[in-house]
């Protein structure tokens, strides 16, 4: 499906500082101080997003993917959540050292977020028009009437039918897909440089998922925004992402350009994830599942956190936590953008 646009003026080059990535997360660590102990939700995560690029962060529940996004947005519930270390460099400036007020101005205007459940993320007592218009009224001081016109415009942009008539409706009067479009419109309102979408399609049914993802990809292309897509759905990722970071137990275990990852995973966890997708050509066979459960973040096992569930685990895996190894192809030349936190990435990738 094409994502190019014929009518809207592309805003290429508006975002970013020109040289570096739009967002760079360096060695981010987040922990939750709970009564049971300290849960290390994010343990030294690194990633970067360039303008116009889509990074998919993949992982199961509790892998730290949402928490790392909340840390970037600065909406971590604190306490119990604390960012203990790391840098979040957005357009050359570290968000973590910024003042509260300054950081608030970045939110919404330059970095926006789309939430999983649009019904609960929209305020039930205000009309959607009022909520969309609020973005302009807060950040630009637009008049009430003008804000309403802009709200209608935005609703048309995300292709809500009869936007003019529906601008005065309340969130509960919209269907799930329409609500998610409104959520997208809100995030898009001030044309941010970066959008973080936290499982934007999980609450939607499959037919609507595709529409919403296409819309998101199209708008991203049009405005030349960076997009971080947080998901546990490998199917969603394949069509829209440029590169993928797979998270497990609060760390990134594999990074790869999207096609490289599907063609040949370099980490047993990714391999397991890919094998657990139902396939038509394996009809009648038992579906593969990764054994066991993700580790308790209060007690992350020593060595590689995946070793208790890993079919390739050996002694070294129980003792040494593998760093992110640079991945090379069979001839030994490094593959750009690929890395794997597995002692046996070579065996996994090249199949020994």
């Amino acid at each position, binding site marked *: 499906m094409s994502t190019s646009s014929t009518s809207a003026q592309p805003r290429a080059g508006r975002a970013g500082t020109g040289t570096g990535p739009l967002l760079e997360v360096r060695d981010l660590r987040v922990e939750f101080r709970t009564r049971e102990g300290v849960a290390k939700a994010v343990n030294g995560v690194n990633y970067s997003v360039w303008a116009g690029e889509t990074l998919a962060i993949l992982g199961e529940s509790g892998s730290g993917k949402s928490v790392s996004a909340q840390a970037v947005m600065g909406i971590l519930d604190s306490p119990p959540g604390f960012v203990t270390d790391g840098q979040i460099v957005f357009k050359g400036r570290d968000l973590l050292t910024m003042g509260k007020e300054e950081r608030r101005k970045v939110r919404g205007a330059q970095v926006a977020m789309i939430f999983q459940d649009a019904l609960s993320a929209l305020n039930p007592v205000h009309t959607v028009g009022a909520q969309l218009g609020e973005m302009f009224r807060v950040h630009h001081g637009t008049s009430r009437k003008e804000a309403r016109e802009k709200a209608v415009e935005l609703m048309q942009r995300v*292709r809500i039918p009869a936007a003019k008539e529906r601008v005065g409706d309340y969130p509960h009067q919209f269907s799930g897909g*329409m609500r998610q479009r409104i959520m997208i419109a*809100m995030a898009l309102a001030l044309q941010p440089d970066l959008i973080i979408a936290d499982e934007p399609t999980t609450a939607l049914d499959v037919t609507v998922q595709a529409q919403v993802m296409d819309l998101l990809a199209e708008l991203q292309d049009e405005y030349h925004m960076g997009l971080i897509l947080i998901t546990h759905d490998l199917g969603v990722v394949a069509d829209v992402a440029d590169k993928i970071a797979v998270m497990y137990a609060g760390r990134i275990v594999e990074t790869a350009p999207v096609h490289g990852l599907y063609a040949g995973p370099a980490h047993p966890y990714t391999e397991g994830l890919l094998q657990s997708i139902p396939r038509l050509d394996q009809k009648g066979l038992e579906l593969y599942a990764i054994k066991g459960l993700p580790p308790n973040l209060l007690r992350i096992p020593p060595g590689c956190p995946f070793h208790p569930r890993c079919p390739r685990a050996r002694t070294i895996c129980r003792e040494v936590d593998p760093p992110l190894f640079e991945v090379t192809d069979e001839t030994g030349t490094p593959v750009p953008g690929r890395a794997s936190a597995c002692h046996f990435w070579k065996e996994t990738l090249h199949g020994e």
Partner: protein
Amino acid sequence: MPDQEKYNEADPMAGAGTEEEEMQSAIENRQFDLGTMEGETLVKGERLADHPEAPSADERVVPRSLWQDAWRDLRTNPIFIVSSLLIVFLVLVAIFPSMMTSTNPLNCDLSKSQLGPTGGHPFGFDTQGCDVYARTVYGARASITVGVCATVGAALVGTVLGGVAGFFGRWPDSVISRVADIFFGIPILLGGLVFLSVIKNKSIWIVVAFIVVLGWPQLARIGRGAVITAKEQDYVTAARALGASNNRLMLRHILPNAVAPIIVVATIALGTYIALEATLSYLGVGLRPPTVSWGIDISAASDSFSVAPHMLLFPAGALSITVLAFIMLGDAVRDALDPKLR
């Protein structure tokens, strides 16, 4: 097809008839490329799912907010109708007592002391020979003023303090909650006897202030709980993620979602505050003559109840009806705002 025109006006794509027309209009408008066309046809499908009968814009149900829903419920609730008519009547009496009687409640004739109802004086006379009907009518003002002002005061103080405690948590919460606990622990009658007996010059506002001081913790607790509940909602996080400031979060996103329980409790409290004023006046620490108050009259009449029961029954009846009206109103409002509690 008027409705089709409506849709066309709003969005050139959505209401078009056939695929070809749609394609044509898209090309003409140069609004969308081919890639988005597929999505567009799906959008149409979704719209149909939204409105199974595909009504036009005019036929669509008018959007309703919680308050509009509540108002619809209230309008058909007999308890609300009866209680609000009573309250409107009482408020009118409180503002324009001369509308109901031409007799001056302070114009008394000792020779008529404790006389029963006669023509022109339907409720009879009290010990001082004052007209009981006139005193009952004029007594409404003190009761309603104290009730309404004390409720507004307690609700404002309680909402602000409870809201701050709930929103910020941590030490502001600890400080406010402990102070509220202290005030909560003061028995209201004992507190009234102690504090109010110290003050000599008792205007109506002293009594109002006393009720506010002892009444706010109840509303602060309700407000704090409601704010904490609303604060945890996703839409608050979402608003924060989109750059809303603390003030905006509190006033626009949390308060409208937390105010319903406060209104309910405050309406019910209004009835009890009116009763409290009467109680304090009865005990001699509330309002003092020459202020006309039901509590004062009940107190004066209780000595000679066996001789002249009419002196007690009329002001006491008026007090009961007023308190009942406000409590019924509170119940009706609660049912309308939170149907699940019913």
